[in-house]
């Protein structure tokens, strides 16, 4: 049995080439885009001199790749090593600033979304496992398959219509869930971490906490419900295995209440695979976040990416994708290590 440390090192070494590949792919894609970003920025009023100047400032007049070191690819890599993600051509501020500004919004959304996915998924999965082969079981299984087929943005729109617009009509304009934004325009939020709910708790602004939670309900439900599908199926499958195990049968024989047994012991055992699944689902989470943020006007990284694409802001596009790539790589690294920690059989 290899040591955990050896596994960590091996895994880390494996991550580096993967990241490099991703970075290179990003570089290639973004540099080959049609439409000159410089001309897009200056508009028809730009003179040829201004265009040349800007191209030079952005380092675009160097060759994309060459044998020496003076080309765009090398510049790109060295900038990244220095933590420089470039300056957004549309917003005129460093891309890193924007990511710092927008990422907490996405983080907050995904945390709450995951919580919902977790609760809905795990409890339905466990319930279905317990009620094996009943109508309830089949319905929940169907839900698990079907929810994955629902376009996340459509679910978002439907929730907006039902709980945003119709609910307001029904209650005579008095109550409805917000369908856009993170917080009411009336409130200037206290920002410390960028997670409004947390910041509200820290600064003691009850209004900020409740208002943010209120705005989180629909988007988090959208993200959470769609993701819950896979948790449902996974939990159910694992629970079934565990339920059949000797451990449970003997507890049964000793007359311990079935429900207690199920929800305490079995759940704990099914927990680990689900945890690792959460890590693997992270990529899907990011994709879902992009679509959810666009639907709910949520000012996160997803919205930022979509805007950047629309405005052909290639430093922003590049920077955001690099950030996401690094994030995905880190999360899967952490998940693998945690899993290896828990289950020594996995280490190479």
């Amino acid at each position, binding site marked *: 049995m290899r040591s955990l440390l050896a596994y960590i090192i091996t895994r880390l070494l494996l991550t580096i080439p993967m990241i490099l590949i991703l970075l290179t792919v990003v570089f290639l894609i973004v540099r080959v885009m049609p*439409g*000159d970003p410089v001309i897009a920025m200056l508009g028809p009023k730009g003179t040829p001199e201004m265009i040349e100047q800007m191209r030079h400032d952005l380092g675009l007049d160097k060759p994309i790749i060459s044998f020496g070191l003076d080309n765009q690819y090398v510049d790109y890599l060295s900038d990244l090593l220095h933590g420089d993600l470039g300056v957004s051509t549309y917003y005129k501020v460093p891309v890193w600033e924007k990511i710092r500004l927008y990422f907490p919004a996405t983080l907050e959304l995904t945390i709450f979304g995951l919580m919902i996915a977790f609760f809905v998924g795990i409890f339905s999965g466990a319930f279905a496992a317990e009620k094996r082969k009943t109508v309830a079981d089949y319905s929940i299984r169907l839900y698990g398959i079907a929810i994955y087929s629902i376009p996340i943005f459509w679910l978002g729109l439907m929730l907006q219509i039902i709980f945003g617009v119709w609910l307001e009509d029904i209650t005579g304009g008095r109550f409805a869930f917000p369908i856009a934004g993170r917080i009411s325009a009336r409130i200037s939020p206290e920002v410390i971490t960028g997670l409004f709910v947390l910041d509200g708790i820290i600064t003691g602004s009850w209004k900020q906490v409740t208002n943010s939670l209120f705005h989180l309900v629909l988007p988090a439900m959208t993200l959470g419900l769609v993701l819950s599908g896979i948790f449902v199926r996974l939990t159910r499958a694992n629970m079934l295995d565990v339920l059949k195990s000797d451990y449970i049968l003997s507890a049964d024989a000793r007359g311990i209440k079935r429900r207690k047994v199920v929800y305490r012991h079995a759940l704990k055992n099914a927990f680990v695979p689900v945890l690792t699944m959460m890590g693997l689902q992270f990529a899907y989470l990011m994709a879902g976040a992009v679509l959810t943020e666009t639907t709910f006007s949520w000012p996160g990284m997803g919205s930022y990416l979509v805007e950047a694409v629309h405005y052909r802001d290639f430093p922003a596009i590049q920077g955001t994708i690099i950030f996401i790539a690094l994030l995905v790589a880190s999360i899967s690294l952490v998940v693998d290590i945690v899993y290896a920690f828990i289950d020594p059989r996995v280490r190479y």
Partner: protein
Amino acid sequence: MKRISLKITILALILGLALFGALMAGCEKPAPVDGPDEPMEESVIIIGTTDKVTDLDPGEAYDFYTWEIFQNISAGLLTYEPGTTELVPGLAEEWPEVSDDGTEYTFKLREGLTFSDGTPFNAEVVKFSIDRVITTKGDPSWLVDDFVDSVEVVDEYTVKFILKDTFAYFPSLVASVPYFPVSPNIYPADEVVTDPSELVAIGPYKVESFVREVELVLVKNPDYYGEPAKNDKIIMKYFKDATTMRLAVEKGEIDIAWKTLNPTDIADLKGNPDLKVVEAAGAYIRYLCFVCNGDPFSDKILREAVACALDRTSVAEKIFLNTVEPLYSMVPIGMWSHTDSFEETWGEYNVEKAKELLAELGYNEENPFTFELWYTPTHYGDTESDMALILKQGLEATGVMKVELKSAEWGSYVDNFDIGNMGAFLLGWYPDYIDPDNYTSPFALSTASDSMGIFYQDPVMDEYLLGAQVKTKMKDRTALYEDAQDYWAMEVPTAPIFQGKLILVTQPDIAGIKVAPTMIFNYKTVYRE
């Protein structure tokens, strides 16, 4: 169903109640008129916008919204009377003295004024600011550089502009933001400052705080030379998109929803008895350009035929729900010298005439005139593809035209101007300075037309436009522009489509809003009833 564990039930109930309570507490009721923590006496107005702030540097900013900020915290030597296109002295004491040949403008400045950072306002500062714009070569610098040769300090409070030629519309240039004086403490002579360490003010408002893309807070400037603002504080909230802003004004979270709401939301809100809608003619125009030196539109008759069959009313009604006005001349409605030349020459939407013109060239139902209509899908908003579709339908309704819709992202679109491959393309225009010259010369003057991808050369048009540039009497200039517009309707280098309206949706107790085709929103006139 087995008995549910008591513990779990209780936990769930408590959680549910807590959540419900939290939600009810956070639920938005129409908030009281003042901000949550403001003392009752201070009058605060909250304005929402979807526009973005670009560079906070008068020498670099080239968008109306950032200009608007400067127009409220700063001022030019000349300025517009709020709600009108009338120029009045601003930081200058009086109207400038103009030399006989029209190339020298001498301004006497107001005395005893200082910037909010303590820098005194005088002729040196004015010269510094103008020189700076020329040196830093920012985006709008041509507004200074193309016209001003040099600036002379005559004495502490007198400054002279020496122009490169006679430009009758120079006063309207002076009123534009690139000419605004800046504090040398904050803005160095040779560098653009996107985010100044301090937003220095000399106008009706001072800046209390600014968080990019979140909010801008302005407070009344006690040192302002003019009439004090009718409100104490302005909070500008930045919205990611129009839908969010619509919801905010509907719920009473903001007092005024400024640019830009969705046309469908405006139409919907007009029917809401709890909100007020304020409308004014805007300065934004949309039009169709033709490549006049290539295939097929070098033939004037084809351009005329297309212009006849532009269904402006359908575009205005169906896509924009009447938040825009059909336009029949490149000079916008509300500007002096405007005449509805296209309507007078061709009518509103004249299918018969289009058929007639095309028949001359041998086009008919069996042999329709086929051409490409280009548009750019996001730069002008996401209504663009719909507009292209409606225009196409209107053109094809003549029975003798077939239109192929093509699109290119803004970057490629602008590239194509030089290439000249977009025979007919849709474009939009916000004015740089408020004068008919800015709506005509850039497109049809032989020295400018090429850079817009139109390639139109005509000595008669040049005569009108150049003549109007140098004539100093309003009467003469008006006559020339009227002639130019009539000629335009016959020549059709471009065909106007619509003019945008300025629309604000406000809470019912807001009054005093004055907006004009200058696109300037002076916050100082707004008050709460």
